[in-house]
């Protein structure tokens, strides 16, 4: 034990949430394991941020359906997190003596893993959530944290005044020292919203976690309990401004939008960025094949695909088969799906391993919403079959196979 190495900062990644607003897409997997951007999962962004920021010890706190996430993370090798000392660890709840205890809140999840954290004996702990799309250098944030001598630094981004009601808002003085939190205010004093990215000086955090745990009335939540308690106790809390692209992919809409952002050259989220690579677990698949009659127009396609249809502004995940005559627009087709001949998709998300027959129409009647807002997104769940000729109206969410009976 005495020979274990001290780490300057380790990351604790909260990956427990079900993300129920993503409907059928999170039926089998935790939200951080949802596919994104042609070959990634949402969690790849946070993990790659860690690795690119020089953090080599990451604890992933899970409790909801962790199997697929666990097997996706594996030994951490795709992110170079298969380290002899540190690396990635999955941290589920466990029993201490007779009884086990599930994670009660974000703060409680960290509290239950104090022992894990202390194994690395870190000076600072970075607390993250695994369901945002952004590229951020936590090393620079740490430098800021050290410079301001903060007990806690919260990454913030500017949001339009009309959206403050969706965020935890933060009020600071001119030096960005925090004096107040406002939870989802209708009329906020500032436009600085918390990104759910915190750096704590570990000794401080530890003592507040212990105090919070002793308080039976606490919801054991960072935003609601820990930070306000620290503020009240007169600790230094600072905001750290982040200016890049950031998106919470908590709904079907935002998941679709944020995928489409990748195809918009005006949106500042570039995946092909060698000094800030996004790592992911790559499937063992051959190069893609583009057939004689394919047309591709502002489209992303991954390994193992066979494309014979016409595609426009779409994202195609690995191992997808698109047959001749298929017309796919403004859509996302996830891994292993098949789209039959002459089938049309518009504003649709097709989940993994789903088979769409011939002459199917998905997103039928999709029309632009008011104010140029895009039409409703149609979602076809994973592992199901949609029979030939089925028409699925815009905005539907299909959970089960649609098989036409014989003679129909």
């Amino acid at each position, binding site marked *: 034990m005495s020979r274990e190495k001290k780490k300057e900062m380790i990351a604790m990644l909260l990956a427990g949430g079900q993300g129920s607003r993503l409907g059928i897409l999170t039926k089998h997997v935790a939200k951080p394991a949802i596919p994104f*951007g*042609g*070959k990634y999962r949402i969690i790849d962004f946070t993990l790659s941020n860690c690795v690119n920021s020089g953090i080599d010890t990451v604890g992933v706190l899970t409790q909801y359906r962790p199997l697929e996430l666990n097997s996706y993370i594996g030994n951490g*090798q*795709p992110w170079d997190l298969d380290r002899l000392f540190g690396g990635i660890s999955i941290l589920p709840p466990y029993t201490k003596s007779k009884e086990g205890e599930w994670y009660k809140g974000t703060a409680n999840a960290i509290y239950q893993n104090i022992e894990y954290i202390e194994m690395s004996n870190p000076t600072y702990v970075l607390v993250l959530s695994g369901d945002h799309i952004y590229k951020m250098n936590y090393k620079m944030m740490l430098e800021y944290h050290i410079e301001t001598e903060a007990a806690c630094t919260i990454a913030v981004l500017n949001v339009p005044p009309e959206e403050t009601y969706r965020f935890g808002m933060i009020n600071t003085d001119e030096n960005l020292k925090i004096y107040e939190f406002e939870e989802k205010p209708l009329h906020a004093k500032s436009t600085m919203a918390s990104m759910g990215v915190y750096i704590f000086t570990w000794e401080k955090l530890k003592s507040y976690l212990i105090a919070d745990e002793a308080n039976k009335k606490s919801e054991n939540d960072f935003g609601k309990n820990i930070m306000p308690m620290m503020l009240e106790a007169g600790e230094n809390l600072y905001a750290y401004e982040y200016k890049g692209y950031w998106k919470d992919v908590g709904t079907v809409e935002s998941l679709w939008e944020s995928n489409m952002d990748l195809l918009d050259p005006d949106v500042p989220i570039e*995946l*092909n960025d060698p000094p800030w*690579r*996004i*790592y*992911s677990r*790559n499937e*063992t698949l*051959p*190069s*893609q*094949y*583009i*057939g*004689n*009659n*394919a*047309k*591709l*127009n*502002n*489209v*992303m*396609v*991954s*390994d193992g695909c*066979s494309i014979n249809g016409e*595609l426009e502004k779409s*994202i*195609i995940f690995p191992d997808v088969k698109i047959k001749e005559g298929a017309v796919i627009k403004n859509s996302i087709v996830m891994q292993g799906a098949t789209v039959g001949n002459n089938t049309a998709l518009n504003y649709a998300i097709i989940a993994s391993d789903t088979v769409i027959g011939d002459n199917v129409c998905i997103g039928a009647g999709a029309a632009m919403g008011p104010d140029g807002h895009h039409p409703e997104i149609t979602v076809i769940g994973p592992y199901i079959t949609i029979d030939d000729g089925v028409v699925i109206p815009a905005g539907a969410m299909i959970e089960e196979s649609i098989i036409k009976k014989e003679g129909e």
Partner: protein
Amino acid sequence: MNALGIIFSYSEYENLRELTKIRTLASIPFAGKYRIIDFILSNYVNSGIHDISIITKINYHSLVDHLGAGKEWDLTRKIGGLRILSPFSTPGSLDNTGNYKGTIDALYKSMHSIKRSMAEYVIIAGSNFICSIDYEEVLKSHIERNADITLIYTYPREGEILPHGAAMIRMDESERVYELNYNKMDSISQDMPVCMSMFVLRKSLLESLVADSIAFGRYDFYRDIIQRLCGNLNILGYEHKNIYFEVSNVTDYMKENMKLLDEQTSKKVFEKPVYTKIKDSVPAYYCAGSQVSNSIISDGCKIEGTVINSVLSRGVIVGKGSVVKNSIIMQDTEILNNVTLNNVILDKEVIVRENRQLVGHETYPVVIEKKSII
């Protein structure tokens, strides 16, 4: 599986011009994102063989780079795993010439590594034949038929290629090999079985055959073991019936790559997973206005122009107005705007400037060396 895999990463009779100037045969790119070695290693791994030695000669730098610690092939192991052998890493090799006198000499100089393996059998493969084969089946047949050596052969089919120097065999009705000759024609009759440079035998037999041959100054595996001993040893053929590719000169290399544009052919090669180095490239991106047909495209490519009947490796950029036809473009090569290419092989990291035109012939493709700027 109770077998050690030995791969020869070079060939004695290849003529791949610029392509092997900076690399060994086994590390030549193939089928878009792969190298030849990927197919060979994947055959072993998919057959449950995890103890593999690769014999190298010169120019194996790119092979070492590509394989790294062997993680992608699941060969980073405590027990077994991947070893790259070179004549220079041989214990006590005080002479610095590092040339093998032949395949047997190469095996002899790799004996320190072969002997350490606990495996009972050895499965040897060259790097000029690419196919998907199940060695478990081959070994089963080897044991059942009580062979001394099993030699894997195939019948070349319509349009399939065989180079000068390929080893043709004759067998009796029980598949016992009684003759071996080298191909001296440009093509051969299609009922002549050809050795695919793959052999199965007991490790102890290999050890004694090599020791004996060296003692008598015999250095060539085909001539001095198969040809010479087929009267005394029970050398049996095992037919590989699935598709194969053969790479030993530039025209063939081009033809064989193009065969993969047929999806049925491609499927047969990729029946079982083929592993390769992971590059963490982004998905391929087809810009508005791009036109791509009947082509293999790999991750990280960005296509603004036109690509027809071509094979593109990872990270290739095709600029606006450019037309790439019947060509093979290797990793990270950049084709700027308004370029025309036809029957061309561009090696890695080539840059083709605006408005350039390069046209080869099907039977004699233009080959552009790695890192050239045109």
